[in-house]
């Protein structure tokens, strides 16, 4: 149980920081499209700012989605003949995408996370959900893949 909780935390933190770093680069690119000069120092400062300030928002959305998507992925994984952490990766990604749809439908603003306004941006954020799912499976060793490996080693 501790391993699962730890895996959840690691997945959440790593994916949220990764998402913050990625979305900062998209936002800076949008400014550069209007000929705004962003030097390396400012890019670093902006990225650090967003890691501190954006990651918690992302973590709330991602964490909530994982509470649903990871059990579903586990359910599917257990029923596959050749289970793999890929189901957790897919579950994390699809779960986050659905969470974005729900959040944007509920909140007054059309798109809460600005980077999600474009397809490349949305794909990159959803991929962070996949990263969270995959990390959770590997660190927790909850996937039948890990169990299968263990059973194979024991045999």
């Amino acid at each position, binding site marked *: 149980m501790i391993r699962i909780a730890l895996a959840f935390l690691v997945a959440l933190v790593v994916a949220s920081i990764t998402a913050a770093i990625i979305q900062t680069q998209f*936002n800076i690119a949008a*400014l550069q*499209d209007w000929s705004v000069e962003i030097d390396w120092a*400012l890019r670093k400062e902006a990225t650090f*700012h967003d890691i501190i*300030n954006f990651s918690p928002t992302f973590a709330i959305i991602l964490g909530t989605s994982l509470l649903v998507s990871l059990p579903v992925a586990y359910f599917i994984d257990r029923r596959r003949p050749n289970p793999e952490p890929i189901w957790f990766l897919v579950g994390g990604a699809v779960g986050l995408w659905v969470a974005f749809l729900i959040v944007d439908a509920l909140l007054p603003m*059309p*798109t809460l996370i*600005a980077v999600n306004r474009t397809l490349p941006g949305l794909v990159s954020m959803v991929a962070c959900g996949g990263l969270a799912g995959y990390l959770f499976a590997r660190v927790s060793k909850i996937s039948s893949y890990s169990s299968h490996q263990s059973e194979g080693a024991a045999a």
Partner: protein
Amino acid sequence: MKALALSVLSLALYAGATFADEEITLSVIADDLNQPWGLAQLPDQSWLVTERGGRLLHIDANSNATQTVALNLPNLFAEAQAGLFEVLLAPDFEQSRKVYLSYACGVASRNTTCVSVGMLNQEATEVSNLEVIFSGTDKKGAAHYGGRMTWLPDATLLLTLGDGFDYREQAQNLDSYLGKIVRMNADGSVPEDNPFRHKEAPLIYSYGHRNVQGIVYDAERDAIWQHEHGPRGGDELNKIEAGKNYGWPLVTYGIDYTGAYVSPLQKLPGTVQPLLQWTPSLAPAGLALHNGDLWVAHLAGQRLQRFRFVDGKWQQSQDFLQERETRYRAVASGSDGRLYILEDSPNAKLLAISY
């Protein structure tokens, strides 16, 4: 009966309310207003009040009688922030009876800010002969329309527009009306001396705006004052000048609702700095000049702020009505010397204060 009850209520609750350094009297002129948005005073001192859902009301400030004005706006889109916005009388209203109405038009997947002009009959019971004179750049979603209007002394009309929320970069695009203030002749045509003549958006007067919710022309100082919403923080009070870039989203004192930077920059050559900025946001939603002072109504800030012009600068002098814990949508100067304020709620009041 209703009018009498309102009068008694206003006297009982508000008369003689004392504030920090000034005594004001607050009266309830009308209640049961559903998300009112804009107001304009007729020559007989009665009021036209818009409701975002699309209703136009005629309110007698003396008898407190309220009646619905028949209005059939073409293609009105009312949802979330979208709907009927401002009502403004033509400069020659007493002769022409023309009223200007700004509103969201279209459907959820394709909508924009429109302006129609129509004729108000003598009894103020109907607006007829409506004609669309402006239609902005289409966008998806129901957020950030601007919608405030004011006349300049040369009888050209200024209309504020929003960035549509999802289209913030378009505030810098001079071929789009998103995130702009536009200037047009009374019939919607392009004034000869507009600063930009881009083919797709020839009415642009200034750009780099997020969601302008207040604008007023100050004849005494020959200046245009405006305020606009920032995201989280960075609401701005600006002096608007033709052709200037007010920076959004390249520079801002606010951050995104997610906590991320919209931009790490607060200043940039070629962009105009605000006269003052509100951080955290108070969400200014109405602007009026009254007795030489600038009055700002706030939504999230739930207060009315007065600014005085001292040594060439606006200085905040006093906050009012905070104790009522109500959002305020609009403020207007009455020809009877009172200041009129619209609350923002599904059961809102039209208030008048005198001091």
